């Protein structure tokens, strides 16, 4: 460890922390009570926010970082790690969350972006970051800025998993395509992906991202969660899918089990039974382009 830099050590701590969430479910919560339900259901972390994505869609307007008072209440209510969201590029919101002792920051397209060109330089922070990505170039740009975890963007608040599947298939397919390229072609690959060359080399060598890769956006059922694991992701974020359904406690417990037993269809059949109605959902084709969240980020 003697020849490693402080940044290497910070990466080891933050990347390692992200590894601990693997095979787990991170749940959006808007109150301390919901956080307790999520923890009791077996969530590996909670994401504290004022409105779940489905309500952000309905309410419209500018969506921002949550009230620090609410975040503090949630931190006090549970012992699992607490995450919270900042607007893309909003350096000061991130500084505030770090000062509050939040364990992970989501630089999220679900909130209204604060910067139309630049994301936060995450290596300026001690607290780790998760960022969304639709494709490999976007994922590697975020890792290059210091993100410790990548998630699909999906189309949050729709209850429709198709977009998360598209992003997962794209990232994993592009990883396989890079692995098939000879080493001397990687600089051109990096140019085409608009991604850092060293990270493209990492993907070529290891066949995976340098950080964990989670599913998010539109996960509404245990089968949706298991599908994302089958595709090769490391874990799942669930937002509106739980607290917009008929029986949040049972659904949350079932989704946690589905992520552990995604390879066991007998267990999945058993836990998918009689969960009550899922969230209603929105057909993504019905969204006018301005309402699509996944296209935010650059």
């Amino acid at each position, binding site marked *: 460890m003697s020849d490693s830099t402080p940044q290497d050590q910070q990466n*080891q701590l933050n990347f390692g922390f992200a590894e601990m969430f*693997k*095979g787990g479910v991170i749940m959006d919560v808007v109150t301390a009570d919901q956080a307790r339900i999520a923890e*009791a259901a077996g969530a590996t972390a909670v994401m504290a926010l004022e409105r779940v994505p489905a309500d952000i869609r309905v309410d419209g307007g500018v969506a921002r970082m949550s009230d620090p008072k609410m975040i503090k209440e949630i931190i006090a209510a549970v012992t699992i790690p607490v995450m919270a969201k900042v607007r893309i590029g909003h350096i000061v919101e991130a500084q505030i969350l770090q000062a509050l002792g939040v*364990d992970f920051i989501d630089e999220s397209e679900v909130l209204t972006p604060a910067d139309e060109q630049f994301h936060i330089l995450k290596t300026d922070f001690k607290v780790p970051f998760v960022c969304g990505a639709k494709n490999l170039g976007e994922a590697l740009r975020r890792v290059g800025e210091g993100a410790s975890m990548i998630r699909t963007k999906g189309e949050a608040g729709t209850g429709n998993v198709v977009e998360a599947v598209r992003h997962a298939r794209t990232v994993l397919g592009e990883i396989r395509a890079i692995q098939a390229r000879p080493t001397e072609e990687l600089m051109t690959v990096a140019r085409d992906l608009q991604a850092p060359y060293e990270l493209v080399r990492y993907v070529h060598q290891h066949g995976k991202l340098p950080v964990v890769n989670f599913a998010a956006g539109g996960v509404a059922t245990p089968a949706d969660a298991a599908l994302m694991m089958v595709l090769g992701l490391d874990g799942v974020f669930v937002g509106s899918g739980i607290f917009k359904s008929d029986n949040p406690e049972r659904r949350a417990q079932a989704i*946690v*089990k589905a*992520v552990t037993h995604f390879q*066991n269809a007998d267990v999945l059949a058993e836990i998918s039974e009689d969960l009550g109605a899922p969230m209603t959902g929105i057909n993504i084709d019905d969204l006018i382009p301005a309402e699509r969240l996944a296209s935010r980020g650059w």
Partner: protein
Amino acid sequence: MAGKSSRIGVLALQGAFREHRRILESLGAAVTEVRLPADLAELDGLVLPGGESTTMARLLTVYALWQPIRAFHAAGGAIWGTCAGAILLAREVRGAPPQFGGKQESLGLLDAVVQRNAFGRQINSFAAALPVAGLDAAFPAVFIRAPAFTAPGPQVNTLATWEGQAVMLSQGHVLATAFHPELSSDPRVHALFLKMAVETKSEIA
């Protein structure tokens, strides 16, 4: 060669089970992922990985794994817990979620009290060159929202301390580390555990 013939299970409910698997396999062990009680059959050792102890405790209840793991230990199986896994081993857990009345079920195979998040939240996580009894050079230990141990019973050996807090203990064929050897590239603690698993097996045989 230690570990040549060891069959080791890694509890794979959630957390860093793949990292353990990779290092154990690099040392020659045959590794099984344990998700249901039947997966414990024929194993010499079991690793409880890092992750979230409340999540793992809940899933241990849901899949009725508590008693099978205690029975595995009683039958001579070696068990090693890292971070969240070490919390699951202890006699008593402090700092459990308030809504559970501050209580958290544990296996009770290690005669010590474990304090969750003893060093603070994620911004207080750290890496350190840790002197460990039985290793000739310091171990590159990664502490992430790490627990620490207090009140060890007379049969417990303290193998490492950091800032006055016990962070690595053993008791018979149970090993507990508050840090994450699976996140560093140093396989010495994994080798130590494989040796423990093999020795326990030969004592029983």
